């Protein structure tokens, strides 16, 4: 990690040993570059084994506008995959296709194939409501419901018709899973908006895992949070990857370096004739490999901070 170009851009204080950075997760996130990353701790096979999702030649259109094209990706089971790239490269668009949230955008259309557990995600008999019960999502800005903390967690199980033996227990488990239980156990009846931004985002993660999903999509989950809250969410993501497949969109390359097992780099290029900018997948590799020796010139330029 130390040789990665992104580490060179980090503040010099990152070079000094910072014991506080490990464990507590309360240090400046830049310091995390020196702490063992998940990618460093775990053996990542060269190709995703037993992939949960396969994307083949995926392109997304909004009306006549092609937002992104040529996306071929395999998402490994219980891995963290980061989608990175400059603004407008289509990474969030791709993410929203994976649980059919793009269906809500009028005129959105997906070409190519997205396969989830050997089923075509866009097959005619597939119900997007059912898809979203298996593939949860955490949004850019924390969006708790204007209800109590308890009801925020219980909402998903209630609407999906889950019949837990004890709802109280399910709520506790979800909150523990999102590392929030100790902070809120005495105020479960309080409105979720009384929590801080970072707590709200962890509440949203707890809400998501309460319905027991298979895959969790995260759309820049830390972009509205301060460095301390960001570090806690990143620690949480690494814990959650023991049980869930996580796909995260991030603007923050250090974040991808810290948490992701694999990274997909997207960029946007203007069409030679129409001048229309379309996003495309440039490179997909294990995070360490991509940050140490990118194969594509465009990836190298981006991660060394030459554009974007």
């Amino acid at each position: 990690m130390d040789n990665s170009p992104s580490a060179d851009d980090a503040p010099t204080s990152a070079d000094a040993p910072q014991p506080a950075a490990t464990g507590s997760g309360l240090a400046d996130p830049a310091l995390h570059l020196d702490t063992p990353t998940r990618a460093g701790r775990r053996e990542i096979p060269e190709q995703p084994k037993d992939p949960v999702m396969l994307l083949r030649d995926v392109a997304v259109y909004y009306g006549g506008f092609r937002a992104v094209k040529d996306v071929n990706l395999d998402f490994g089971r219980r891995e963290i995959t980061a989608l990175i790239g400059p603004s407008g490269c289509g990474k969030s668009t791709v993410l929203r296709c994976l649980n059919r949230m793009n269906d809500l955008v009028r005129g959105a259309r997906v070409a190519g194939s997205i396969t989830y557990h050997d089923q075509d995600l866009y097959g005619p008999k597939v119900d997007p409501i059912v898809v979203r019960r298996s593939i949860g999502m955490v949004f850019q800005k924390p969006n708790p419901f204007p209800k109590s903390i308890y009801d925020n967690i219980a909402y998903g199980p209630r609407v999906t018709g889950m019949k837990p033996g004890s709802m109280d227990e399910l709520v506790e488990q979800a909150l523990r899973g999102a590392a929030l239980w100790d902070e809120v156990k005495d105020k479960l009846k309080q409105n979720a908006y009384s929590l801080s931004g970072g707590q709200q985002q962890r509440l949203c993660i707890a809400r998501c895992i309460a319905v027991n999903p298979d895959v969790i999509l995260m759309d820049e989950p830390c972009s509205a949070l301060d460095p301390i809250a960001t570090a806690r969410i990143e620690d949480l993501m690494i814990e959650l990857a023991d049980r869930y497949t996580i796909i995260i969109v991030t603007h923050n390359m250090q974040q991808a370096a810290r948490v992701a097992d694999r990274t997909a780099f997207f960029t946007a290029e203007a069409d030679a004739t129409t001048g229309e900018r379309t996003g495309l997948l440039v490179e997909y590799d294990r995070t360490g490999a991509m940050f140490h020796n990118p194969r594509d010139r465009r990836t190298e330029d981006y991660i060394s901070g030459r554009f974007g």
Partner: protein
Amino acid sequence: MSTTQTTGVEDPAVAEATSHADLTAGQRSIKDVLFYVGMLASLGIAFTALVALIALMLVQGWPRLNLDLITHFPSSIPARAGAESAVLGSIWVVGFTALFTIPLGVAAAVYLEEFADKQRWYNRLIELNIQNLAAVPSIVYGILGLGLIVQAAGLGQVVLAASLTLTLLVLPTVIIAAREAIRAVPDSIRAGSLALGATQWQTVWRQVLPASVPGIATGVILALSRAIGEAAPLVLLGGLTFIQFNPSGLDSPFTVLPIQIFNWVSRPQDEFEVLAAAAGVVLLVILLAMNSIAILVRNRFQRRW
């Protein structure tokens, strides 16, 4: 600044320093004060008019402001006349208007905001129509009610006909207010609900509607306040002025407070004018009570994002 640079005599840096040194507002402060006074004056005029109106009615109606007013039926002898049947008539008519308006108005607003495809011509036509209908004079609704509800549907000049007519009258207002309230619920709430696997219907019913209750309640009360003060369309419908019994059902003949007040004012005896003023105070008290319910509901359901 440009002159200092062209003459070259003054050092621009010095000029800049002096302009930064003067921190008083200069001309702007006078405008600010004028604007502030103007705002206070507008508020004062509105407030004074309201207070004057209430004071005038209180003073004029004071001799007859007692329980007799709402426990006696109308009479041609001023000393014995009361507005019991009118007060109860108003409550019946507006009560049923609320019963019809709230579900219809909210359902229409939910359809238009959450389900309607705004590209379709018929949805755009409905929207345009609702906005226009809100501006139609109430007397026109009276004509409609008379022709359609009283005569064509054969309901007769009864409480139900009055409620239905007032429902038509206030429905556009309620729909517009409910749409505003529904639109004010952030999309992130809908996305959060849908991403958990909730259906669109569950999202509307469990997230969007509860979150828009305060706005809807405000709109409903404003609309009903308008309905309770209406005399014109009900006069057309045949709201009577001399009803010696209380409404007992949807098929009862009826009168309402505004009609009773109008009737008393137009009588020659001075005593009836006193009665009219007193009945006006009663009408205001009912309005005030309705508004406080709205404020209670709003505070109870208050949300912040």
